């Protein structure tokens, strides 16, 4: 409930207890029975307003209660951006509506100087954004939730601790159960988690055996907290992605400094990847801005690489349109897709020449000797897009325009039967065949003269037809067969033209002529 109020206060631009917030205020939701209080501020709570009350009842307790509309959809959207932002503490986060966040910090705590420091950093960051939070750290999501909601402030449950003993003092509400189940448990006299643990499991299981959902079954919740059954919001397989980051003393706003940081990160990443014998295929650069936004830039490499200068150069182009706003306070480089890349001997000659600088300066030294093919393709793809840099590969089809397919330049080519030597194919084909008007001697005969792009071509020599039938297993029945002719006109220009259909094939009127290819 604090969350909605915090957001309302931020929207009004107030600090806590200041201005309008000093007076009793409630956020209300419209219901079928009239306005109902969704949340109340500190003064409001003191005056007697409680979440869930009808506004009319609250007004009887506190006539001067001010109201503002609540905005659950906006709260949820804000929580979503907050979840993305909270990934600064770990590579993975999830929503816990209405006001919670779960962040997986496994393997990331050392980047912040330990778990305590991580929690302190989180608390400080949220406080800076004007949001009141309670944080907790535990091996399971359930335990972390319980500690954050009902435990002491900044509680940490280490993997070596005994969770049963540490959590025994928490109220049963810490189990994330439905309201009616909680009431039932209270009636049964079970107030603390420790009470549940003391009972025979069988009797509880019997009591709740027809409760399938986890939120209605205290046993299931208990198992989740203790990590005995997996909770689906945790990633099933822990994938380890090399990750380096820099938290900046001073938020940076200038491109040059940002490039410097990215170059440093690329160098860090190079060391990390080198240690594991990996090369990166995809890299994600996350930029956490002071105003709570997260900008992500991704690049993909044509071949695994860990060359810092090359990586930094690829990102340099992608940083052009980053709006730093009030500044960037944290930069993280992550490599979610890696492939094995063995160590290679460095260039001794170049090292001796001493021009293997760091960061961007190193790029110049390498440029002197020319880039490698993979690096060249990476640079082309970053600027022009992957769809623009491709290579043709054969495809099993006898239709000329389907006989080649385009794929990435470094992807392996699949085996195929190859082309026939007796089929003469043009050097280039048009993306779509262009219709030409043709004069021919007899309706089925060779073309004599045709008009294409406003110019008349006299056909001097020709060879054909080569008949290519439509692919009946793929196309609809009305597609006509084609008769291809290789022709040379009076000026020596060589073209590949075809007539679509033959007269009387029952698939349309007079056959049309098309020009599809250009010979050398």
């Amino acid at each position, binding site marked *: 409930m604090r969350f909605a109020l915090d957001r309302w206060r931020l929207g009004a631009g107030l600090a806590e207890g200041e201005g309008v917030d000093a007076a009793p205020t409630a956020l209300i939701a419209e219901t079928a029975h009239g306005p109902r209080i969704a949340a109340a501020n500190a003064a409001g709570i003191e005056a007697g307003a409680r979440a869930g009350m009808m506004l009319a009842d609250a007004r009887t307790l506190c006539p001067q209660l001010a109201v503002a509309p609540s905005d659950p959809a906006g709260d949820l959207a804000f929580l979503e951006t907050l979840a993305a932002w909270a990934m600064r503490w770990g590579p993975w986060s999830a929503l816990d509506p209405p006001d919670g966040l779960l962040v997986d910090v496994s393997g990331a705590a050392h980047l912040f100087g330990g778990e305590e420091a991580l929690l302190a950093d989180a608390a400080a960051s949220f406080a800076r954004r004007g949001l009141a939070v309670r944080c907790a750290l535990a091996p399971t999501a359930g335990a972390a939730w319980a500690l954050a909601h009902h435990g002491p402030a900044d509680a940490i449950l280490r993997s070596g601790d005994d969770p049963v003993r540490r959590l025994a003092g928490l109220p049963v509400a810490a189990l994330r159960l439905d309201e009616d189940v909680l009431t039932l448990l209270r009636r049964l006299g079970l107030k603390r988690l420790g009470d549940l643990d003391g009972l025979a499991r069988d009797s509880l299981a019997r009591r709740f055996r027809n409760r399938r959902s986890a939120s209605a079954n205290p046993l299931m919740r208990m198992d989740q907290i203790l990590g005995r059954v997996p909770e689906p919001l945790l990633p099933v397989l822990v994938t380890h992605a090399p990750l380096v980051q820099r938290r900046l003393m001073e938020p940076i706003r200038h491109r040059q400094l940002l490039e410097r940081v990215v170059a440093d990160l690329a160098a860090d990443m190079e060391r990390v990847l080198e240690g594991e014998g990996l090369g990166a295929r995809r890299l994600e650069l996350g930029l956490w801005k002071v105003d709570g936004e997260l900008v992500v830039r991704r690049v993909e490499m044509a071949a695994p690489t860990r060359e810092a200068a090359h990586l930094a150069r690829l990102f340099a182009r992608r940083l052009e349109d980053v709006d730093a706003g009030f500044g960037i306070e944290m930069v993280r480089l992550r490599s979610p897709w890696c492939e094995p890349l063995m160590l290679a001997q460095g260039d001794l000659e170049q090292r001796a020449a001493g021009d293997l600088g760091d960061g961007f300066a190193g790029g110049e030294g390498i*440029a*002197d*000797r*020319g*880039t*490698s*093919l993979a*690096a*060249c*393709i990476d*640079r*082309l793809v970053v*600027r*022009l897009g992957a*769809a*623009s*840099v*491709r*290579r*043709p*590969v*054969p495809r099993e089809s006898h239709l*000329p325009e389907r*006989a*080649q397919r*385009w794929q990435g*330049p470094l992807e392996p*080519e699949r085996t195929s039967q190859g*082309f026939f*030597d007796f*089929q*003469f*194919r*043009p*050097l*280039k*084909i*048009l*993306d779509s065949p262009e219709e030409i008007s043709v004069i021919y001697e007899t309706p089925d005969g060779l073309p004599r003269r045709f008009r*294409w*792009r406003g*110019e008349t071509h006299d056909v*001097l*020599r*020709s*060879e054909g037809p080569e008949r290519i039938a439509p692919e009946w297993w793929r196309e609809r029945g009305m597609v006509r067969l084609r008769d291809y002719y*290789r*022709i*040379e006109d009076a*000026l*020596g*220009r*060589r073209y590949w033209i075809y007539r679509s259909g033959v007269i009387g094939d029952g698939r349309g009127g007079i056959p049309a002529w098309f020009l599809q*290819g*250009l*010979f*050398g």
Partner: protein
Amino acid sequence: MSRTAALSAISAAALREGERHDLLLAELGARDAQGWRPGLGAGAQGGEVAHGEIFARADEGAGAALALALALDRQRAAVPDPLADTPDERRWLWVQDREALRRSGRPYRPGLPEHLRHRLVHVAARDAADALFALEEGLRCRDLAFVIGEITGNPRALDMTASRRLGLAAERHGVPFWLVRLDARRDLSSARMRWEAKSAASPPPRWNPQAPGSPAWQAELFRARRYPPGQWTLREQAGRLMAAKYGAEKAGPEAETAMDHGPEPVSAPLTSDAQPRRAG
């Protein structure tokens, strides 16, 4: 006065020196140019990097085909490494801007020369600026065999500076480069050789004289660093680039114009010709 005289004496000496130098150059150039024909692997022997421009019309395949023929010819003429027993399998780059792609089509793998088919990397650039960027990146790449560009018209981005940049990049990294200018005016450029190419009537194939034969082009070299300009009829035959002085090709195309060079040609013709292949 004496000072002026001294100065003029110095400049006269410098001029004489310069003149002698020029004369020497001219002499060398003349010796080089003597008997020069395209298709003799020019440049490859002298260690000079090819940077050529080919002006052609967009509605015929002559430009790209001639660029490919020159590239192939150059590869063939290059002295092979006696120890290497693997063929050259480096990729080559073909960059087209959008207009070139629309007007003259995109490369068709079955029609490409057999040894180049599987090595093509094609770049479809949005405009001339992107195409120039791609060309320069390609020329800086040490793993490319050669680079071909196709740019339509006279875009603002392709000025003398851009042309010089490309030429320098090609020279520095030793990547041969041909730029095909489709439907373009002859403007300023730093290319070492500038050609104007159009299709020419092909020699009739032996078995079906009614069919189009192996490709032929009428090529005019209108500007070159070291060679006199001239007009030739170029043909691709049995994997070799044949040249005949323009107008002389009437007298028996296969007779005296065949310029043999290099070792045994290993490649197939540029585009498949209509002649049946002979065994052996």
